[in-house]
Protein backbone atom coordinates (compact mmCIF):
# COMPACT_ATOMS: atom_id res chain seq x y z
CA UNK A 1 0.00 0.00 0.00
CA UNK A 2 2.72 2.48 0.94
CA UNK A 3 4.56 1.63 -2.27
CA UNK A 4 1.39 2.29 -4.21
CA UNK A 5 0.88 5.57 -2.38
CA UNK A 6 4.42 6.62 -3.14
CA UNK A 7 4.00 5.82 -6.82
CA UNK A 8 0.76 7.76 -6.97
CA UNK A 9 2.31 10.76 -5.19
CA UNK A 10 5.15 10.73 -7.71
CA UNK A 11 2.61 10.54 -10.53
CA UNK A 12 0.68 13.49 -9.09
CA UNK A 13 3.89 15.53 -8.92
CA UNK A 14 4.62 14.78 -12.57
CA UNK A 15 1.09 15.86 -13.54
CA UNK A 16 1.50 19.12 -11.66
CA UNK A 17 4.85 19.75 -13.35
CA UNK A 18 3.23 19.08 -16.74
CA UNK A 19 0.39 21.48 -15.97
CA UNK A 20 2.79 24.19 -14.79
CA UNK A 21 4.85 23.75 -17.96
CA UNK A 22 1.86 23.73 -20.31
CA UNK A 23 0.39 26.83 -18.67
CA UNK A 24 3.71 28.64 -18.80
CA UNK A 25 4.35 28.05 -22.48
CA UNK A 26 0.76 28.41 -23.64
CA UNK A 27 0.28 31.78 -21.98
CA UNK A 28 3.51 32.96 -23.60
CA UNK A 29 2.38 31.77 -27.02
CA UNK A 30 -0.64 34.05 -26.85
CA UNK A 31 -0.65 36.86 -29.36
CA UNK A 32 -0.93 40.28 -27.76
CA UNK A 33 1.27 41.67 -25.03
CA UNK A 34 -0.50 42.42 -21.73
CA UNK A 35 2.21 44.94 -20.83
CA UNK A 36 1.76 46.85 -24.05
CA UNK A 37 -2.00 46.80 -23.46
CA UNK A 38 -1.51 48.25 -20.01
CA UNK A 39 0.84 50.95 -21.22
CA UNK A 40 -1.67 51.94 -23.87
CA UNK A 41 -3.30 53.93 -21.11
CA UNK A 42 -0.17 55.96 -20.44
CA UNK A 43 1.23 55.84 -23.98
CA UNK A 44 4.79 55.44 -22.66
CA UNK A 45 6.80 52.60 -24.30
CA UNK A 46 9.70 53.16 -21.89
CA UNK A 47 7.37 52.33 -19.02
CA UNK A 48 6.45 49.07 -20.75
CA UNK A 49 10.13 48.10 -21.05
CA UNK A 50 10.62 49.03 -17.43
CA UNK A 51 7.75 46.82 -16.42
CA UNK A 52 8.95 43.92 -18.57
CA UNK A 53 12.33 44.11 -16.85
CA UNK A 54 10.70 44.27 -13.43
CA UNK A 55 8.73 41.11 -14.25
CA UNK A 56 11.79 39.39 -15.72
CA UNK A 57 10.30 39.18 -19.23
CA UNK A 58 13.47 40.36 -21.00
CA UNK A 59 15.25 37.09 -20.12
CA UNK A 60 15.33 34.26 -22.68
CA UNK A 61 12.26 32.02 -22.40
CA UNK A 62 14.09 29.01 -20.93
CA UNK A 63 15.60 31.20 -18.19
CA UNK A 64 12.14 32.55 -17.46
CA UNK A 65 10.82 29.00 -17.33
CA UNK A 66 13.35 27.73 -14.80
CA UNK A 67 13.01 30.88 -12.69
CA UNK A 68 9.25 30.35 -12.73
CA UNK A 69 9.48 26.67 -11.74
CA UNK A 70 11.85 27.55 -8.92
CA UNK A 71 9.46 30.23 -7.69
CA UNK A 72 6.43 27.94 -7.89
CA UNK A 73 8.21 25.29 -5.82
CA UNK A 74 8.89 27.97 -3.20
CA UNK A 75 5.20 28.92 -3.23
CA UNK A 76 5.85 32.23 -4.99
CA UNK A 77 3.25 32.69 -7.73
CA UNK A 78 4.30 36.16 -8.81
CA UNK A 79 2.48 39.47 -8.55
CA UNK A 80 -0.80 40.57 -10.06
CA UNK A 81 -0.18 42.98 -12.93
CA UNK A 82 -3.63 44.49 -12.62
CA UNK A 83 -4.70 47.11 -10.10
CA UNK A 84 -2.79 47.24 -6.86
CA UNK A 85 -0.03 44.67 -7.60
CA UNK A 86 -0.92 42.21 -4.85
CA UNK A 87 1.12 38.97 -4.62
CA UNK A 88 -0.84 36.18 -6.33
CA UNK A 89 -0.29 33.88 -3.35
CA UNK A 90 -2.06 36.41 -1.11
CA UNK A 91 -5.05 36.59 -3.47
CA UNK A 92 -5.24 32.81 -3.59
CA UNK A 93 -4.82 32.38 0.16
CA UNK A 94 -7.83 34.69 0.62
CA UNK A 95 -10.02 32.98 -1.94
CA UNK A 96 -9.10 29.37 -1.17
CA UNK A 97 -11.16 28.93 2.06
CA UNK A 98 -14.24 30.37 0.31
CA UNK A 99 -14.15 27.84 -2.50
CA UNK A 100 -13.40 25.00 -0.11
CA UNK A 101 -16.28 25.83 2.26
CA UNK A 102 -18.60 26.20 -0.71
CA UNK A 103 -17.68 22.84 -2.23
CA UNK A 104 -17.67 21.02 1.11
CA UNK A 105 -21.15 22.34 1.90
CA UNK A 106 -22.38 21.46 -1.60
CA UNK A 107 -20.90 17.97 -1.25
CA UNK A 108 -22.57 17.43 2.12
CA UNK A 109 -26.00 18.58 0.97
CA UNK A 110 -25.80 16.61 -2.27
CA UNK A 111 -24.70 13.34 -0.68
CA UNK A 112 -27.29 13.60 2.11
CA UNK A 113 -30.03 13.86 -0.46
CA UNK A 114 -28.65 11.65 -3.24
CA UNK A 115 -27.72 8.48 -1.37
CA UNK A 116 -31.15 7.93 0.26
CA UNK A 117 -32.84 8.94 -3.00
CA UNK A 118 -30.80 6.42 -4.97
CA UNK A 119 -31.41 3.67 -2.41
CA UNK A 120 -35.16 4.25 -2.38
CA UNK A 121 -35.15 4.31 -6.16
CA UNK A 122 -33.39 0.94 -6.28
CA UNK A 123 -35.52 -0.73 -3.61
CA UNK A 124 -38.80 0.39 -5.15
CA UNK A 125 -37.68 -0.16 -8.74
CA UNK A 126 -40.21 1.02 -11.38
CA UNK A 127 -42.52 2.50 -8.73
CA UNK A 128 -43.84 6.04 -8.97
CA UNK A 129 -41.18 7.03 -6.44
CA UNK A 130 -38.43 5.58 -8.64
CA UNK A 131 -39.75 7.39 -11.70
CA UNK A 132 -39.96 10.61 -9.69
CA UNK A 133 -36.36 10.35 -8.53
CA UNK A 134 -35.18 9.50 -12.05
CA UNK A 135 -37.01 12.46 -13.56
CA UNK A 136 -35.68 14.91 -10.97
CA UNK A 137 -32.19 13.52 -11.57
CA UNK A 138 -32.62 14.17 -15.32
CA UNK A 139 -33.67 17.75 -14.60
CA UNK A 140 -30.70 18.20 -12.28
CA UNK A 141 -28.29 16.97 -14.95
CA UNK A 142 -29.79 19.16 -17.64
CA UNK A 143 -30.06 22.38 -15.68
CA UNK A 144 -27.17 24.84 -15.98
CA UNK A 145 -25.90 25.51 -12.45
CA UNK A 146 -25.74 29.26 -13.01
CA UNK A 147 -29.39 29.30 -14.05
CA UNK A 148 -30.42 27.38 -10.93
CA UNK A 149 -28.44 29.98 -8.99
CA UNK A 150 -30.43 32.78 -10.65
CA UNK A 151 -33.74 31.02 -9.97
CA UNK A 152 -32.78 30.63 -6.31
CA UNK A 153 -31.91 34.33 -6.09
CA UNK A 154 -35.20 35.31 -7.78
CA UNK A 155 -37.14 33.18 -5.29
CA UNK A 156 -35.36 33.33 -1.96
CA UNK A 157 -33.51 36.65 -2.12
CA UNK A 158 -35.46 38.98 -4.43
CA UNK A 159 -38.90 37.42 -3.85
CA UNK A 160 -39.09 36.17 -0.28
CA UNK A 161 -36.16 38.14 1.09
CA UNK A 162 -35.04 35.23 3.26
CA UNK A 163 -31.44 35.01 2.14
CA UNK A 164 -28.75 37.49 1.06
CA UNK A 165 -28.51 37.55 -2.75
CA UNK A 166 -24.72 37.85 -2.98
CA UNK A 167 -21.52 37.85 -0.97
CA UNK A 168 -19.69 35.62 1.45
CA UNK A 169 -19.36 35.51 5.23
CA UNK A 170 -16.60 33.48 6.89
CA UNK A 171 -17.44 30.79 9.39
CA UNK A 172 -15.99 33.01 12.12
CA UNK A 173 -18.91 35.41 11.69
CA UNK A 174 -21.24 32.72 12.99
CA UNK A 175 -22.60 29.49 11.51
CA UNK A 176 -25.99 30.98 10.62
CA UNK A 177 -24.51 33.93 8.73
CA UNK A 178 -22.05 31.65 6.94
CA UNK A 179 -24.76 29.20 5.98
CA UNK A 180 -27.22 31.88 4.82
CA UNK A 181 -24.61 33.16 2.34
CA UNK A 182 -23.51 29.76 1.08
CA UNK A 183 -26.68 27.68 1.01
CA UNK A 184 -27.94 28.94 -2.37
CA UNK A 185 -24.62 28.61 -4.24
CA UNK A 186 -24.08 25.21 -2.60
CA UNK A 187 -27.46 23.96 -3.84
CA UNK A 188 -26.77 25.33 -7.32
CA UNK A 189 -23.43 23.50 -7.53
CA UNK A 190 -24.57 20.37 -5.71
CA UNK A 191 -27.62 19.60 -7.85
CA UNK A 192 -25.95 18.04 -10.92
CA UNK A 193 -23.57 16.25 -8.54
CA UNK A 194 -26.50 14.87 -6.53
CA UNK A 195 -28.18 13.73 -9.75
CA UNK A 196 -25.12 11.72 -10.80
CA UNK A 197 -24.67 10.16 -7.35
CA UNK A 198 -28.35 9.21 -7.06
CA UNK A 199 -28.32 7.50 -10.46
CA UNK A 200 -25.08 5.76 -9.65
CA UNK A 201 -26.32 4.52 -6.25
CA UNK A 202 -29.47 3.22 -7.91
CA UNK A 203 -27.77 1.27 -10.69
CA UNK A 204 -24.99 -0.11 -8.52
CA UNK A 205 -27.47 -1.14 -5.79
CA UNK A 206 -29.53 -2.99 -8.41
CA UNK A 207 -26.38 -4.79 -9.59
CA UNK A 208 -25.48 -5.86 -6.06
CA UNK A 209 -28.99 -7.05 -5.22
CA UNK A 210 -28.73 -9.50 -8.13
CA UNK A 211 -25.53 -11.15 -6.85
CA UNK A 212 -25.30 -14.58 -5.30
CA UNK A 213 -24.18 -13.53 -1.85
CA UNK A 214 -27.30 -11.46 -1.42
CA UNK A 215 -29.41 -14.42 -2.55
CA UNK A 216 -27.59 -16.56 0.01
CA UNK A 217 -28.19 -14.02 2.76
CA UNK A 218 -31.85 -13.95 1.81
CA UNK A 219 -32.17 -17.71 1.79
CA UNK A 220 -30.57 -17.81 5.24
CA UNK A 221 -33.58 -15.80 6.34
CA UNK A 222 -31.68 -12.69 7.37
CA UNK A 223 -33.78 -9.59 7.86
CA UNK A 224 -34.31 -7.40 4.84
CA UNK A 225 -32.86 -4.26 6.35
CA UNK A 226 -29.92 -6.14 7.80
CA UNK A 227 -29.08 -7.51 4.37
CA UNK A 228 -29.43 -4.11 2.77
CA UNK A 229 -27.30 -2.19 5.23
CA UNK A 230 -24.77 -4.86 6.14
CA UNK A 231 -24.23 -6.61 2.82
CA UNK A 232 -25.64 -4.72 -0.11
CA UNK A 233 -25.00 -1.05 0.61
CA UNK A 234 -21.24 -1.20 1.36
CA UNK A 235 -20.64 -3.13 -1.84
CA UNK A 236 -22.87 -0.83 -3.82
CA UNK A 237 -20.84 2.12 -2.59
CA UNK A 238 -17.62 0.98 -4.26
CA UNK A 239 -18.44 2.06 -7.81
CA UNK A 240 -20.10 5.18 -6.39
CA UNK A 241 -16.81 6.21 -4.84
CA UNK A 242 -14.98 5.97 -8.17
CA UNK A 243 -17.54 8.28 -9.69
CA UNK A 244 -17.15 10.51 -6.65
CA UNK A 245 -13.76 11.63 -7.94
CA UNK A 246 -15.27 12.69 -11.23
CA UNK A 247 -18.18 14.28 -9.44
CA UNK A 248 -15.95 16.21 -7.04
CA UNK A 249 -14.26 17.71 -10.06
CA UNK A 250 -17.73 18.65 -11.26
CA UNK A 251 -18.35 20.51 -8.00
CA UNK A 252 -15.16 22.52 -8.49
CA UNK A 253 -16.10 23.30 -12.08
CA UNK A 254 -19.51 24.42 -10.83
CA UNK A 255 -17.89 26.65 -8.23
CA UNK A 256 -15.92 28.44 -10.95
CA UNK A 257 -19.17 29.61 -12.58
CA UNK A 258 -21.48 29.95 -9.60
CA UNK A 259 -19.05 32.01 -7.51
CA UNK A 260 -19.40 34.60 -10.22
CA UNK A 261 -23.18 34.69 -9.88
CA UNK A 262 -23.03 35.26 -6.12
CA UNK A 263 -19.97 37.55 -6.25
CA UNK A 264 -18.07 35.21 -3.92
CA UNK A 265 -14.40 35.98 -4.37
CA UNK A 266 -13.28 32.35 -4.42
CA UNK A 267 -10.78 30.66 -6.72
CA UNK A 268 -13.26 30.52 -9.59
CA UNK A 269 -13.97 34.21 -9.50
CA UNK A 270 -10.26 34.98 -9.19
CA UNK A 271 -9.59 32.80 -12.26
CA UNK A 272 -12.35 34.32 -14.40
CA UNK A 273 -11.59 37.91 -13.36
CA UNK A 274 -7.92 37.20 -14.11
CA UNK A 275 -8.82 36.01 -17.60
CA UNK A 276 -11.10 38.98 -18.27
CA UNK A 277 -8.43 41.43 -17.00
CA UNK A 278 -5.65 39.58 -18.88
CA UNK A 279 -3.85 39.35 -15.57
CA UNK A 280 -1.58 36.45 -16.53
CA UNK A 281 0.22 35.88 -13.22
CA UNK A 282 -3.17 35.54 -11.52
CA UNK A 283 -4.53 33.22 -14.25
CA UNK A 284 -1.38 31.12 -14.05
CA UNK A 285 -1.54 30.89 -10.24
CA UNK A 286 -5.26 30.15 -10.15
CA UNK A 287 -4.92 27.40 -12.79
CA UNK A 288 -2.08 25.82 -10.81
CA UNK A 289 -4.02 25.83 -7.54
CA UNK A 290 -7.31 24.64 -9.07
CA UNK A 291 -5.39 21.90 -10.91
CA UNK A 292 -3.66 20.96 -7.68
CA UNK A 293 -7.04 20.47 -6.02
CA UNK A 294 -8.15 18.13 -8.84
CA UNK A 295 -4.98 16.09 -8.76
CA UNK A 296 -5.15 15.80 -4.98
CA UNK A 297 -8.83 14.83 -4.93
CA UNK A 298 -8.23 12.17 -7.62
CA UNK A 299 -5.43 10.81 -5.46
CA UNK A 300 -7.60 10.74 -2.33
CA UNK A 301 -10.41 8.97 -4.18
CA UNK A 302 -8.02 6.31 -5.51
CA UNK A 303 -6.57 5.67 -2.09
CA UNK A 304 -10.03 5.60 -0.54
CA UNK A 305 -11.07 3.14 -3.21
CA UNK A 306 -8.25 0.82 -2.24
CA UNK A 307 -9.02 1.21 1.46
CA UNK A 308 -12.75 0.56 1.18
CA UNK A 309 -12.61 -2.48 -1.08
CA UNK A 310 -10.62 -5.31 0.52
CA UNK A 311 -10.56 -7.11 -2.84
CA UNK A 312 -8.26 -4.45 -4.24
CA UNK A 313 -4.62 -4.86 -3.27
CA UNK A 314 -2.02 -2.59 -4.72
CA UNK A 315 1.54 -3.75 -4.79
Amino acid sequence: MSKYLLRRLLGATVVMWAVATLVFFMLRAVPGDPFLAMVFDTGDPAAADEMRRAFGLDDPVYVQYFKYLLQVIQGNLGTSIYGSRVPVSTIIAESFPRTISLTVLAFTIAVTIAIPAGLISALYKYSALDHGVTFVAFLGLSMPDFWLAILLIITFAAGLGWLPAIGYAPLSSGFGTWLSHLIMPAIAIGTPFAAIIARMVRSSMLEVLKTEYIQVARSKGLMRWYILLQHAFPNALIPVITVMGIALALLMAGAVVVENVFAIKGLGRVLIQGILNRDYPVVQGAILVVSGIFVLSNLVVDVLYAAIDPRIRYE
Partner: protein
Amino acid sequence: MTAQVTDSLDDAAPVIRRPGFIASMKRDKKAVAGAVLLALFTVAAIAAPLVAPYDPNSMEFDMIGSPTWGHPLGTDDLGRDLLSRLIYGAQVSLFVGFATVGLALVAGIALGVAAGFYGGFIDNIIMRYIDLQWAFPNFIIAVYLVAVFGTGLSNVIVAISLAFIDDFARVARSMVLTIKQEQYIDAARTAGTSNARIMWRHVLPNALAPLIVLATVSVSNAILAEAGLSFLGLGVDASTPTWGLILAESRSFISRAWWLGLFPGLAIMLTVLSINFLGDALRDHLDVRETGEADRA
Protein backbone atom coordinates in the same frame (compact mmCIF):
# COMPACT_ATOMS: atom_id res chain seq x y z
CA MET B 1 -7.79 -15.97 -55.30
CA THR B 2 -6.29 -13.92 -52.48
CA ALA B 3 -8.37 -10.95 -53.45
CA GLN B 4 -11.49 -13.02 -53.26
CA VAL B 5 -10.68 -14.22 -49.76
CA THR B 6 -10.10 -10.66 -48.58
CA ASP B 7 -13.37 -9.51 -50.05
CA SER B 8 -15.41 -12.24 -48.50
CA LEU B 9 -13.75 -11.56 -45.16
CA ASP B 10 -14.60 -7.91 -45.53
CA ASP B 11 -18.18 -8.74 -46.21
CA ALA B 12 -18.22 -10.88 -43.13
CA ALA B 13 -17.26 -7.91 -40.95
CA PRO B 14 -19.68 -8.36 -38.08
CA VAL B 15 -21.39 -4.98 -38.04
CA ILE B 16 -23.94 -5.43 -35.31
CA ARG B 17 -27.38 -4.52 -36.62
CA ARG B 18 -29.99 -4.57 -33.95
CA PRO B 19 -33.44 -5.03 -35.32
CA GLY B 20 -36.14 -2.44 -34.95
CA PHE B 21 -34.15 0.62 -33.94
CA ILE B 22 -36.94 3.09 -34.74
CA ALA B 23 -39.57 0.81 -33.24
CA SER B 24 -37.67 0.44 -30.01
CA MET B 25 -37.07 4.18 -29.78
CA LYS B 26 -40.76 4.83 -30.43
CA ARG B 27 -41.73 2.67 -27.46
CA ASP B 28 -39.53 4.76 -25.18
CA LYS B 29 -41.59 7.78 -24.09
CA LYS B 30 -38.50 9.71 -23.07
CA ALA B 31 -36.95 9.18 -26.49
CA VAL B 32 -40.08 10.44 -28.25
CA ALA B 33 -40.33 13.50 -26.01
CA GLY B 34 -36.63 14.19 -26.52
CA ALA B 35 -36.83 13.81 -30.29
CA VAL B 36 -39.85 16.10 -30.59
CA LEU B 37 -38.32 18.82 -28.40
CA LEU B 38 -34.98 18.68 -30.17
CA ALA B 39 -36.66 18.79 -33.58
CA LEU B 40 -38.62 21.85 -32.46
CA PHE B 41 -35.50 23.69 -31.32
CA THR B 42 -33.58 22.69 -34.44
CA VAL B 43 -36.31 23.90 -36.79
CA ALA B 44 -36.59 27.16 -34.83
CA ALA B 45 -32.83 27.65 -35.06
CA ILE B 46 -32.59 26.93 -38.80
CA ALA B 47 -35.67 28.94 -39.70
CA ALA B 48 -34.93 31.73 -37.19
CA PRO B 49 -35.45 34.61 -39.66
CA LEU B 50 -38.88 33.19 -40.55
CA VAL B 51 -39.96 32.11 -37.07
CA ALA B 52 -38.70 34.97 -34.93
CA PRO B 53 -41.36 37.69 -34.61
CA TYR B 54 -38.82 40.56 -34.54
CA ASP B 55 -35.21 41.41 -35.25
CA PRO B 56 -33.28 40.07 -32.23
CA ASN B 57 -31.17 43.23 -31.98
CA SER B 58 -33.77 45.89 -32.63
CA MET B 59 -34.27 48.08 -29.57
CA GLU B 60 -37.57 49.66 -30.47
CA PHE B 61 -39.82 48.28 -27.74
CA ASP B 62 -40.59 49.14 -24.12
CA MET B 63 -37.69 48.39 -21.82
CA ILE B 64 -38.14 45.52 -19.35
CA GLY B 65 -41.68 44.88 -20.53
CA SER B 66 -43.40 41.90 -18.93
CA PRO B 67 -44.79 39.14 -21.19
CA THR B 68 -47.74 40.27 -23.36
CA TRP B 69 -49.43 38.95 -26.53
CA GLY B 70 -47.06 41.03 -28.66
CA HIS B 71 -44.02 39.88 -26.71
CA PRO B 72 -44.86 36.46 -25.24
CA LEU B 73 -41.60 36.27 -23.29
CA GLY B 74 -41.31 39.99 -22.53
CA THR B 75 -38.56 42.45 -23.48
CA ASP B 76 -35.12 43.07 -22.00
CA ASP B 77 -33.41 46.12 -20.50
CA LEU B 78 -32.62 47.56 -23.93
CA GLY B 79 -36.13 47.00 -25.27
CA ARG B 80 -35.36 43.91 -27.36
CA ASP B 81 -37.86 41.09 -27.83
CA LEU B 82 -36.77 38.16 -25.67
CA LEU B 83 -38.49 35.44 -27.75
CA SER B 84 -36.70 36.57 -30.91
CA ARG B 85 -33.38 36.69 -29.10
CA LEU B 86 -33.87 33.18 -27.72
CA ILE B 87 -34.77 31.80 -31.16
CA TYR B 88 -31.57 33.26 -32.62
CA GLY B 89 -29.70 32.05 -29.56
CA ALA B 90 -30.69 28.47 -30.44
CA GLN B 91 -28.52 28.78 -33.57
CA VAL B 92 -25.34 29.33 -31.60
CA SER B 93 -26.13 26.76 -28.91
CA LEU B 94 -26.99 23.94 -31.30
CA PHE B 95 -24.23 24.78 -33.78
CA VAL B 96 -21.58 24.87 -31.07
CA GLY B 97 -22.99 21.71 -29.48
CA PHE B 98 -22.88 19.63 -32.65
CA ALA B 99 -19.76 21.17 -34.20
CA THR B 100 -17.63 20.68 -31.09
CA VAL B 101 -18.70 17.08 -30.63
CA GLY B 102 -18.15 16.38 -34.34
CA LEU B 103 -14.59 17.70 -34.09
CA ALA B 104 -13.88 15.96 -30.78
CA LEU B 105 -15.32 12.72 -32.10
CA VAL B 106 -13.14 12.63 -35.21
CA ALA B 107 -9.96 13.72 -33.43
CA GLY B 108 -10.62 11.58 -30.36
CA ILE B 109 -11.34 8.45 -32.41
CA ALA B 110 -8.22 9.00 -34.50
CA LEU B 111 -6.08 9.29 -31.36
CA GLY B 112 -7.78 6.45 -29.52
CA VAL B 113 -7.74 4.02 -32.45
CA ALA B 114 -4.11 4.82 -33.24
CA ALA B 115 -3.14 4.33 -29.58
CA GLY B 116 -5.07 1.09 -29.21
CA PHE B 117 -4.19 -0.41 -32.55
CA TYR B 118 -0.46 0.30 -32.70
CA GLY B 119 0.23 0.13 -28.96
CA GLY B 120 3.81 0.57 -27.72
CA PHE B 121 5.46 3.95 -28.12
CA ILE B 122 2.55 5.65 -29.94
CA ASP B 123 0.11 4.41 -27.32
CA ASN B 124 2.38 5.70 -24.56
CA ILE B 125 2.75 9.19 -26.00
CA ILE B 126 -0.96 9.60 -26.74
CA MET B 127 -2.18 8.14 -23.47
CA ARG B 128 0.14 10.19 -21.25
CA TYR B 129 -1.42 13.31 -22.68
CA ILE B 130 -4.96 11.90 -22.48
CA ASP B 131 -4.38 10.90 -18.85
CA LEU B 132 -3.15 14.38 -18.06
CA GLN B 133 -6.28 15.94 -19.52
CA TRP B 134 -8.44 13.29 -17.86
CA ALA B 135 -7.45 14.64 -14.45
CA PHE B 136 -9.48 17.79 -15.15
CA PRO B 137 -13.16 18.46 -15.83
CA ASN B 138 -13.93 19.37 -19.42
CA PHE B 139 -15.42 22.74 -18.54
CA ILE B 140 -12.30 23.82 -16.65
CA ILE B 141 -10.14 22.82 -19.62
CA ALA B 142 -12.38 24.83 -21.91
CA VAL B 143 -11.97 27.84 -19.58
CA TYR B 144 -8.17 27.39 -19.56
CA LEU B 145 -8.11 27.19 -23.36
CA VAL B 146 -10.31 30.24 -23.88
CA ALA B 147 -7.97 32.05 -21.49
CA VAL B 148 -5.17 31.25 -23.93
CA PHE B 149 -6.91 31.48 -27.33
CA GLY B 150 -9.24 34.36 -26.50
CA THR B 151 -12.99 34.54 -27.01
CA GLY B 152 -15.06 34.33 -30.23
CA LEU B 153 -17.07 31.63 -31.99
CA SER B 154 -14.25 29.63 -33.57
CA ASN B 155 -12.06 29.82 -30.47
CA VAL B 156 -14.92 28.62 -28.29
CA ILE B 157 -15.58 25.69 -30.63
CA VAL B 158 -11.90 24.71 -30.69
CA ALA B 159 -11.60 25.08 -26.91
CA ILE B 160 -14.64 22.95 -26.12
CA SER B 161 -13.80 20.26 -28.66
CA LEU B 162 -10.21 19.98 -27.41
CA ALA B 163 -11.62 19.71 -23.90
CA PHE B 164 -13.78 16.75 -24.94
CA ILE B 165 -11.14 14.83 -26.92
CA ASP B 166 -9.90 12.71 -24.02
CA ASP B 167 -13.34 11.15 -23.43
CA PHE B 168 -13.59 9.90 -27.02
CA ALA B 169 -9.98 8.82 -27.20
CA ARG B 170 -10.31 6.71 -24.05
CA VAL B 171 -13.50 4.99 -25.15
CA ALA B 172 -12.18 4.38 -28.67
CA ARG B 173 -8.90 2.99 -27.36
CA SER B 174 -10.49 0.60 -24.89
CA MET B 175 -12.91 -0.65 -27.55
CA VAL B 176 -10.03 -1.23 -29.96
CA LEU B 177 -8.06 -3.14 -27.32
CA THR B 178 -11.00 -5.48 -26.81
CA ILE B 179 -11.75 -5.92 -30.50
CA LYS B 180 -8.09 -6.52 -31.35
CA GLN B 181 -8.30 -9.86 -29.52
CA GLU B 182 -11.15 -11.09 -31.72
CA GLN B 183 -10.51 -13.86 -34.21
CA TYR B 184 -11.94 -12.00 -37.18
CA ILE B 185 -9.14 -9.46 -36.83
CA ASP B 186 -6.58 -12.26 -36.95
CA ALA B 187 -8.37 -13.66 -39.96
CA ALA B 188 -8.31 -10.35 -41.78
CA ARG B 189 -4.63 -9.90 -40.94
CA THR B 190 -3.80 -13.38 -42.23
CA ALA B 191 -5.60 -12.53 -45.43
CA GLY B 192 -3.21 -9.61 -45.84
CA THR B 193 -5.66 -6.77 -45.24
CA SER B 194 -3.87 -3.48 -44.56
CA ASN B 195 -3.90 -1.88 -41.11
CA ALA B 196 -5.90 1.11 -42.27
CA ARG B 197 -8.51 -1.14 -43.84
CA ILE B 198 -8.76 -3.35 -40.77
CA MET B 199 -9.35 -0.28 -38.59
CA TRP B 200 -11.89 1.24 -40.93
CA ARG B 201 -13.80 -1.91 -41.88
CA HIS B 202 -13.52 -4.11 -38.81
CA VAL B 203 -12.54 -2.20 -35.70
CA LEU B 204 -14.47 1.04 -36.06
CA PRO B 205 -17.93 -0.40 -36.83
CA ASN B 206 -17.70 -2.57 -33.74
CA ALA B 207 -16.58 0.28 -31.52
CA LEU B 208 -19.41 2.55 -32.63
CA ALA B 209 -22.14 1.85 -30.06
CA PRO B 210 -20.42 3.31 -26.97
CA LEU B 211 -19.05 6.17 -29.06
CA ILE B 212 -22.54 7.09 -30.29
CA VAL B 213 -23.86 7.15 -26.75
CA LEU B 214 -20.90 9.21 -25.55
CA ALA B 215 -21.31 11.62 -28.46
CA THR B 216 -24.98 12.19 -27.65
CA VAL B 217 -24.34 12.98 -24.00
CA SER B 218 -21.36 15.11 -25.02
CA VAL B 219 -23.57 17.30 -27.22
CA SER B 220 -25.63 18.23 -24.18
CA ASN B 221 -22.48 18.83 -22.14
CA ALA B 222 -21.01 20.95 -24.92
CA ILE B 223 -24.18 23.06 -25.01
CA LEU B 224 -23.93 23.54 -21.25
CA ALA B 225 -20.23 24.41 -21.58
CA GLU B 226 -20.90 27.03 -24.27
CA ALA B 227 -23.69 28.54 -22.19
CA GLY B 228 -21.37 28.61 -19.17
CA LEU B 229 -18.57 30.30 -21.12
CA SER B 230 -20.97 32.86 -22.61
CA PHE B 231 -22.40 33.49 -19.19
CA LEU B 232 -18.92 34.24 -17.83
CA GLY B 233 -18.16 36.60 -20.71
CA LEU B 234 -15.74 34.10 -22.28
CA GLY B 235 -18.00 33.02 -25.14
CA VAL B 236 -18.97 34.19 -28.57
CA ASP B 237 -18.74 37.97 -29.06
CA ALA B 238 -21.08 40.25 -27.17
CA SER B 239 -23.20 41.26 -30.18
CA THR B 240 -24.45 37.71 -30.88
CA PRO B 241 -27.41 36.73 -28.74
CA THR B 242 -26.56 33.43 -27.03
CA TRP B 243 -28.54 31.87 -24.22
CA GLY B 244 -25.69 32.17 -21.73
CA LEU B 245 -25.03 35.77 -22.64
CA ILE B 246 -28.72 36.73 -22.42
CA LEU B 247 -28.82 35.25 -18.91
CA ALA B 248 -25.64 37.11 -17.94
CA GLU B 249 -27.06 40.41 -19.20
CA SER B 250 -30.27 39.87 -17.28
CA ARG B 251 -28.57 39.39 -13.93
CA SER B 252 -28.88 43.01 -12.82
CA PHE B 253 -32.60 43.05 -13.57
CA ILE B 254 -33.83 39.74 -12.25
CA SER B 255 -35.28 41.25 -9.07
CA ARG B 256 -37.69 43.32 -11.21
CA ALA B 257 -38.02 41.11 -14.27
CA TRP B 258 -38.33 37.39 -13.51
CA TRP B 259 -38.93 36.54 -17.16
CA LEU B 260 -35.40 37.64 -18.05
CA GLY B 261 -34.01 35.13 -15.57
CA LEU B 262 -36.45 32.32 -16.27
CA PHE B 263 -36.83 31.86 -20.04
CA PRO B 264 -33.21 31.78 -21.30
CA GLY B 265 -32.34 29.12 -18.73
CA LEU B 266 -35.48 27.18 -19.58
CA ALA B 267 -34.38 27.14 -23.23
CA ILE B 268 -30.98 25.74 -22.25
CA MET B 269 -32.49 23.16 -19.92
CA LEU B 270 -35.10 21.88 -22.37
CA THR B 271 -32.53 21.51 -25.13
CA VAL B 272 -30.08 19.68 -22.90
CA LEU B 273 -32.87 17.57 -21.39
CA SER B 274 -34.13 16.50 -24.82
CA ILE B 275 -30.63 15.34 -25.81
CA ASN B 276 -30.14 13.57 -22.48
CA PHE B 277 -33.43 11.73 -22.98
CA LEU B 278 -32.29 10.61 -26.42
CA GLY B 279 -28.90 9.62 -25.07
CA ASP B 280 -30.47 7.54 -22.34
CA ALA B 281 -32.76 5.76 -24.77
CA LEU B 282 -29.78 5.09 -27.06
CA ARG B 283 -27.81 3.73 -24.14
CA ASP B 284 -30.61 1.30 -23.32
CA HIS B 285 -31.08 0.32 -26.93
CA LEU B 286 -27.42 -0.18 -27.75
CA ASP B 287 -26.88 -1.80 -24.36
CA VAL B 288 -23.95 0.36 -23.30
CA ARG B 289 -23.07 0.18 -19.65
CA GLU B 290 -23.28 3.43 -17.74
CA THR B 291 -19.88 4.29 -16.35
CA GLY B 292 -20.40 7.81 -15.22
CA GLU B 293 -17.73 8.87 -17.70
CA ALA B 294 -20.26 10.24 -20.09
CA ASP B 295 -21.85 12.33 -17.36
CA ARG B 296 -18.69 14.26 -16.86
CA ALA B 297 -19.43 17.87 -17.64
